[in-house]
């Protein structure tokens, strides 16, 4: 005779099974690993933790430049001795979300834990699950390379007290789902503020100037609020999505540090996520200052106009509108109008290669003008471009150009 299990008992068993399912899914579970892979793309772990050009992703060894010296990113492959293979989940979460190393000492915020804290423990452990599937690479990295006194990690305790608030992202109830997703992506795994928010002298974020642009590693990262002169105010949502997806849009092209972000991270994001980022960024009010346009007959404008006509117009157009997705439209570019002209100066001096992606493989290059044009000439042509057509920006001085020339003379791209 068949044993009959009472129905109630069966239901109870099921309930127990559901309830006692662990809060974290099985780390070998495909959905978990796939979620972790995508989160690692959103967080762009590969960029800092891989030496450029190496085929051994996440194996560390890349030197990250900070205002206080260079830090070397560690090996985060699951190698037992030189990677994080023997770390516990708690230790991994503490590092990524709280800035605390396995031995209890503090991480430097070159690791953007102050942004990653916005991810949940689940998120971070999914990343861990993905990292665990990678081939372990034996690569011992010496991480402590900052000069004295910055190598005293204990000092980070004070820094954290000033600049770090731990905690997951909290959705704003008055905003749409899309906006909240964008806010999470930008302030959390995307850690856009790490480059695009200006820093105090101690290297912490100037939170009242969130995403208003910053100087780092010989480049000026741009204002990406919705400011109509300096930021994305004249970009449509589609412009932002195209740029992040392909590195190019009708106005401009991504180069150098942003090339890497696009190649490794944003070009692999889903379209809804890219749209969410665009929605969020366009909601950030600009500072809308009242800078006046320089008159066309000011001497640097006249000299700059001559240089532009002779040298720049063959690609960027007599009207400054360029060619869509090939030559940036200087007349419409916020990069050109940026308060800090470092990036524009650097591109003119050294040339630049824009990023090639599957969507936009051309990767056109800007030639180097550093030998043909002197500092005053570069200052003049940039001043002209910054104030031509509808552009409005401060003049660029020869000293500014000289400084960038000197600063970038020995930098790689």
């Amino acid at each position, binding site marked *: 005779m068949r044993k009959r299990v009472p129905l109630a008992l069966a239901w109870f068993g099921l309930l127990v099974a559901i309830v006692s399912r662990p809060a974290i899914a099985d780390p070998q579970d495909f959905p978990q690993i796939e979620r972790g892979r995508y989160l690692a793309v959103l967080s762009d772990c590969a960029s800092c933790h891989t030496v450029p*050009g*190496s*085929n051994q992703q996440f194996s560390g060894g890349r030197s990250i430049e900070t205002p206080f010296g260079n830090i070397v990113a560690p090996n985060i492959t699951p190698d037992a001795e030189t990677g994080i293979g023997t770390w516990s989940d708690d230790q991994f979460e503490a590092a990524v979300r709280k800035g605390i190393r396995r031995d209890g000492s503090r991480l430097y915020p070159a690791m953007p834990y102050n942004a990653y804290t916005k991810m949940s423990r689940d998120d971070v452990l999914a990343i861990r699950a993905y990292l665990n599937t990678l081939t372990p690479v034996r690569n011992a990295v010496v991480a402590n390379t900052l000069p004295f006194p910055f190598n005293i990690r204990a000092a980070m305790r004070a820094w954290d007290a000033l600049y770090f608030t731990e905690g997951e992202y909290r959705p704003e109830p008055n905003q749409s789902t899309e906006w909240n997703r964008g806010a999470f992506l930008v302030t959390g795994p995307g850690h856009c503020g790490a480059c695009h928010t200006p820093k105090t002298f101690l290297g912490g974020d100037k939170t009242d100037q969130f995403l208003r642009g910053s100087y780092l590693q010989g480049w000026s990262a741009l204002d990406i609020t919705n400011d109509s002169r300096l930021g994305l105010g004249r970009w449509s949502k589609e412009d932002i999505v195209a740029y992040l997806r392909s590195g190019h849009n009708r106005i401009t092209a991504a180069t150098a540090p942003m090339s890497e972000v696009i190649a490794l991270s944003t070009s692999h994001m889903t379209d809804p996520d890219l749209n969410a980022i665009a929605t969020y960024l366009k909601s950030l009010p600009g500072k809308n200052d009242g800078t006046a346009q320089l008159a066309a007959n000011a*001497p*640097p*404008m*006249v*000299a700059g106009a*001559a*240089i532009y*006509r*002779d*040298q720049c*117009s*063959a690609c960027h157009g*007599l009207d400054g509108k360029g060619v869509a997705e090939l030559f940036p439209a200087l007349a419409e570019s916020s990069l050109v109008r940026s308060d800090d002209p470092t990036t524009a100066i650097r591109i003119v*001096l*050294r*040339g*630049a*290669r824009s990023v*090639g992606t599957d969507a936009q493989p051309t*990767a056109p*290059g800007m*030639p*180097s003008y*550093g*030998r*043909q*044009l002197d500092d*005053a*000439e570069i200052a*003049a042509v940039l001043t002209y471009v910054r104030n031509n057509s509808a552009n409005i920006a401060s003049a660029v001085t020869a000293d500014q150009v000289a400084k960038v020339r000197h600063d*970038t003379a020995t*930098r*790689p*791209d």
Partner: protein
Amino acid sequence: MSNDKGDLAICRRQLLAGAAFLALGMSRSGATVIFDHLPWTPNAGNPPPRPVPGPWHFFRGDEGRTAEALADRIIPPDPQTPGGTDAGCADFIDRQLAGPYGRQEGLYTRPPFQNGAKNQGHQSEQGPAQQYRKGLAALNAACKVKLGGRAFYELSDADKDNVLHGIDTGDFKLDGIDGKAFFEQVVKDVQMGFFADPIYGGNRDMVAWKMIGFPGARYNYLDWVSRHNERYPLPPVSMTGRIEWTRG
């Protein structure tokens, strides 16, 4: 591999590194393997060096003076446009002869050197540098012999012209060289210096380009393609720019 001219340096490459890096096909260590992305270096490019004014680099003794005298007969000065000397044509030739052109660099200079038909081209072991030394010397020597002990550059303009016409027709012979061929080369070089970019020493201040109305090293005429039979108004620009770039 054979190495008779020493132009293929035999250096031991790290076999392991080479093979490994080629087998992986990844990361470019030099400019030799192109993989995964277009090559790029900042500050790239190889512009010609700016002219260095000053003493002759190639001409010795009275060669420079002779070259200048020739330049001013081939392109005489007039009220509107300087002549060959003031335009820097002798400087141009001097710098060219001191450089790879003078040395026949890049040309095939292996023996045997045999005379052939004119349409088989230049077959001499001697390049422009040697030809100029010989030619200028022969010119002055011939003038001294036939014109009362005076070198070419000491003659009056009319006499200089007569000598040069004579070389053209074959009446005035130079000793030891083909005078006509040499003079043809000098005419070519002087005129080349006149019209080349000023960065090479001639065409000073773009005087030749201003004379003919050539706008120089421009790159964008899109707004002028359909303007037929109109004078192009912009001044010439060279690779080093024009005065409006600094003065506005």
